[in-house]
């Protein structure tokens, strides 16, 4: 799928394009994601686990036929580490957006439908979290819970939560004031059923879009934490860790950091491209 055709496809105006043409616009992203997901669940398909073994004789070798993406400071094959690191890297991002999305939905509904004081309280808490720079919140949480994937997930989730809380609240307030919710009230539909059948879906959909678009910043914030030495333990096969390990050697062994960087970039771009396509489709469905 050459770049040019992707550009032409992207350029078609959504309104007049047939479904086939719109699918073409998102094909490259879907292709990349399929590869990445397969690598996450079945790394064995793409690389042998044996190459993960540190090898003193092959420290910091440049990309070559034998080591497609070169080797790192402990002589491990970078390509193999990236493949085996896919699972952990993505699982951090996915767990963050899932937890944040869920909390955003529940708390958003509570704020939107609950009593006035609850709404005010939730808004205040969101503002407090917004006051902090995201990375510093994550840092503080990880400093308490110590290193490891779990505390990174909790730290990054706390840092990115405000956006989901606000979105959840805004959309539930919006949904509550729509005509069809009032019409359901006139029909005598009880409040709980209205909340479940009308309001929750119309809050869940935009949150889903935010989750897809938010995946990128979740993974990059986690990598930021690792870079500062507070994310995952060095030596673990994870893209953020690999980027951190090679940071002092960019002058000569640039591939140690950059290869993991490219892998992260391509995955996140593919996800956000898919996210925007889903957002447009959702929007068009409603217009």
């Amino acid at each position, binding site marked *: 799928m050459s770049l040019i055709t992707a550009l032409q496809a992207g350029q078609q105006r959504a309104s007049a394009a047939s479904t086939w043409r719109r699918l073409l616009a998102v094909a490259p992203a879907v292709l990349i994601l399929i590869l990445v997901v397969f690598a996450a669940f079945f790394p064995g398909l793409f690389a042998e686990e044996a190459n993960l073994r540190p090898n003193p004789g092959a420290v910091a070798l440049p990309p070559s036929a034998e080591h497609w993406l070169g080797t790192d400071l402990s002589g491990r094959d970078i390509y193999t580490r990236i493949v085996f690191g896919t699972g952990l890297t993505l699982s951090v991002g996915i767990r963050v957006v899932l937890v944040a999305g869920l909390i955003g939905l529940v708390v958003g509904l509570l704020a939107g439908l609950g009593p006035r004081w609850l709404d005010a309280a939730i808004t205040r808490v969101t*503002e407090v979290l917004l006051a902090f720079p995201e990375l510093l919140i994550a840092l503080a949480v990880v*400093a308490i819970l110590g290193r490891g994937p779990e505390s990174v997930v909790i730290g990054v989730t706390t840092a990115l939560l405000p956006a989901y809380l606000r979105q959840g609240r805004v959309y539930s307030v919006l949904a509550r004031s729509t005509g069809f919710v009032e019409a359901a009230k006139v029909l005598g539909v009880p409040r709980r059923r209205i909340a479940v059948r009308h309001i929750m879906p119309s809050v869940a959909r935009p949150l889903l879009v935010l989750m897809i678009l938010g995946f990128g910043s979740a993974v990059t914030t986690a990598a930021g934490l690792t870079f*500062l030495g*507070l994310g995952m333990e060095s030596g673990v096969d994870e893209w953020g860790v690999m980027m951190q390990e090679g940071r002092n050697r960019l002058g000569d062994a640039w591939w140690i950091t950059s290869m993991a960087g490219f892998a992260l*970039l391509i995955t996140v*771009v593919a996800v956000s491209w898919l996210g*925007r396509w889903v957002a447009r489709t959702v929007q068009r469905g409603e217009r």
Partner: protein
Amino acid sequence: MTRTTAQRVGSRFLRPGALWRALGRRISAAALVLWGAASLAFLVLAAVPGDPVDIMLGPHSTASPEARADIRERWGLNLPLWQQYLLALWRPLTGDFGISYQQQRPVTAILAEQLPHTLLLAVVAMALAIAIAVGAAAFTRRGIFRSIVQLLEPVAVAAPTFWLALTLASVFSYGLGWFPAIGGNPVQQLVLPAIALAVPLAGTLGQLLRDGLDEADRQPFAETARARGLGTVGLVWRHTLRHAASGTVTMAGTLFGWLLGGAVLVESVFARPGLGRVALDAIMGRDLQVVMALVLFAGVVFVIITLVVDALVAFLDPRTRRGGDRA
């Protein structure tokens, strides 16, 4: 059942009464945020393992137990927790921000030294990001340029800040030597860090601005304006940019917080002085006084930014000036 074209005849600009009430509400909300933030910070650091005395002594200190007790007493660490909490809240109100455990000197001195560097970097990065975003969104409304920019934006957003900073540093600073790794004049020191912070920001703001312009294009007034003979770019500069701007300005306000976080990464890569590194060391070293001061500083910046954003939005969108808080 509501009519679309509400009829409002002659309501005057924001009347003074409403203005003060709005300001009062905003200040009380800000005070609440600051109090919340400070308490959260105190709880976080109280919960963090590790004894401040250890931090002060550093690894492998062979200081005797009496010496440790002496330090603990001098720093008031032997007081009960709630007393330390009240002290931690009360002291800043009296202007005394305490002394940093790590650097053993007044926190106000540390802040005064480091603040200008980070603020300068943040402001320059934000300005650069806005310029790039407006340029990207306003001039590529149609055709192949629009597709190219729409492809580049997610890449800019996705690029991890530190990775970008490292690459910029190794190519332009160590490799080509255009910008000195350390030293050099203030301008040279600012270029690469500002770019590293501005690129992800510009990507986000660019996407938001383009959505805003598309939305404005669909409004009836846009068609009327084009019917008067306005071209695509003219429509942007005379009409739609103002509409799209208020949403983008609000987002820029919230992203300012992200910027301060990003500064931590950029400052460590470019060995730049600044609050980023101070914050990192303070949190990692559980330096309570410094963290509390930083939290209050972040809270104040957040409040100022929200006020500035509201003023800008009111300027851009006169409708918000008409009474009533636009919740």
